[in-house]
């Protein structure tokens, strides 16, 4: 590829920031590096799952140079931040010369390496809303080499009801299992309104595995990916559930 012009926006300092308020949540500017997110004390305090994800993303060199905006705009379905941020209900804002608009991150991802960004449009920031009470989020990826890209990853966010037993709300997102980070809505529907137990986890894993749309590549066959989706979905829902229960106490 030989573009006529290439404009480096990494040096746009106005887009490099991490802001948090308990009312509006977290806002991360597009040119904030992975390393800055990893080292942010405010993110560590309010969204520790984001720090864990960053610590396992590539190498220090890559995290020092790569930005969150670049990662999302690259739209690799096996990227780490996409599925986790979707589970956290994140939105992204973007601007052209005339207007600013925001989209749920889910609508930002269109296809393999393709986003909703129009020509002349620039990604501005990621917005993560405050976490509702009794809510926990877990993320894990499966790979061969530590810190490599996921072969499959799963992010699960779970909100318990006031009694602390019933799943009130959930977002399950699959990475490396479809052309885009995929909301596993059939699996979510199985969880919602139910009391969680091993039998239900099995069902949720099975549904997620069925609605995944993985391809085979040099790392894994389609069948193996579906198996990973099932295993990781069960594990992540269980982890989020256990964490949410501790919060409720």
């Amino acid at each position: 590829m030989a573009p006529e012009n290439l404009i480096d926006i990494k040096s746009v300092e106005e887009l490099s920031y991490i802001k948090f308020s308990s009312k509006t949540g977290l806002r991360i500017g597009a040119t904030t590096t992975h390393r800055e997110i990893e080292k942010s004390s405010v993110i560590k305090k309010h969204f520790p799952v984001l720090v864990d994800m960053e610590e396992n993303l590539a190498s220090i060199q890559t995290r020092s140079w790569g930005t969150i905006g670049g990662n999302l705009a690259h739209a690799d379905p096996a990227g780490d931040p996409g599925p986790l941020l979707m589970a956290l209900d994140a939105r992204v804002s973007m601007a052209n010369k005339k207007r600013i608009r925001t989209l749920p991150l889910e609508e930002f991802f269109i296809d393999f390496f393709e986003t909703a960004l129009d020509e002349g449009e620039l990604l501005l920031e990621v917005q993560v809303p405050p976490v509702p009470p009794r809510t926990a989020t877990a993320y894990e990826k499966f790979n061969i080499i530590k810190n490599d890209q996921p072969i499959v990853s799963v992010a699960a966010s779970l909100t318990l009801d006031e009694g602390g037993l019933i799943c009130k709300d959930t977002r399950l997102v699959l990475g490396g299992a479809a052309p885009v980070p995929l909301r596993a809505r059939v699996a979510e529907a199985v969880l919602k309104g139910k009391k969680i137990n091993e039998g239900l986890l099995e069902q949720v894993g099975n549904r997620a595995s069925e609605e995944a749309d993985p391809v085979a590549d040099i790392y894994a066959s389609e069948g193996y990916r579906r198996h990973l989706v099932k295993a990781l979905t069960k594990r992540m829902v269980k982890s989020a559930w256990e964490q949410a229960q501790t919060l409720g106490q």
Partner: protein
Amino acid sequence: MEKHLLHITVNNEYRELYINPKRLLVEVLRDDLALTGTKRGCNTGACGSCTVILNGLPVKSCSVLAMQADGAEVATVEGLAEGGKLSPLPTVEGLAEGGKLSPLQRSFLDHGAFQCGFCTPGMLMSTTTLLKEVKKPTKEQIKEAIHGNLCRCTGYNSIIRAVKAVAEGEYKEKGR
């Protein structure tokens, strides 16, 4: 392709040069500035042998367009030795004439922390940054620091021992 003017400070020396803007930082360092200590391995951001320190941060110079380093300060392995300006003197003979090896470089020698040596400049830049950020890193922190640097000879243990020795103050005496 129209050439662009790059302003860059490498190993404390300010340079201005006209380059094709498509070129990578590793290419300009090696081919234009003759700083061949920085190695070009995979050229895809995987192996880490091209690691340099850019404005204080370790980065893979194959993943940085040279023009993105406009106005930046870059340190390469040639800048590590004590006693000032060595560039472009990437050979052992050059080191003897110029300054003295850095504590980390001496420790790498003593601990046999390399065999073929191709990864060594990158390893040195990653671990130099680590020791600037963390005075006494744990083994885990050292492993994390060199996670992005592949070595196919040593099995990494001698590299970890070399870094640990410097962190524990074994190389405080003057260089040789």
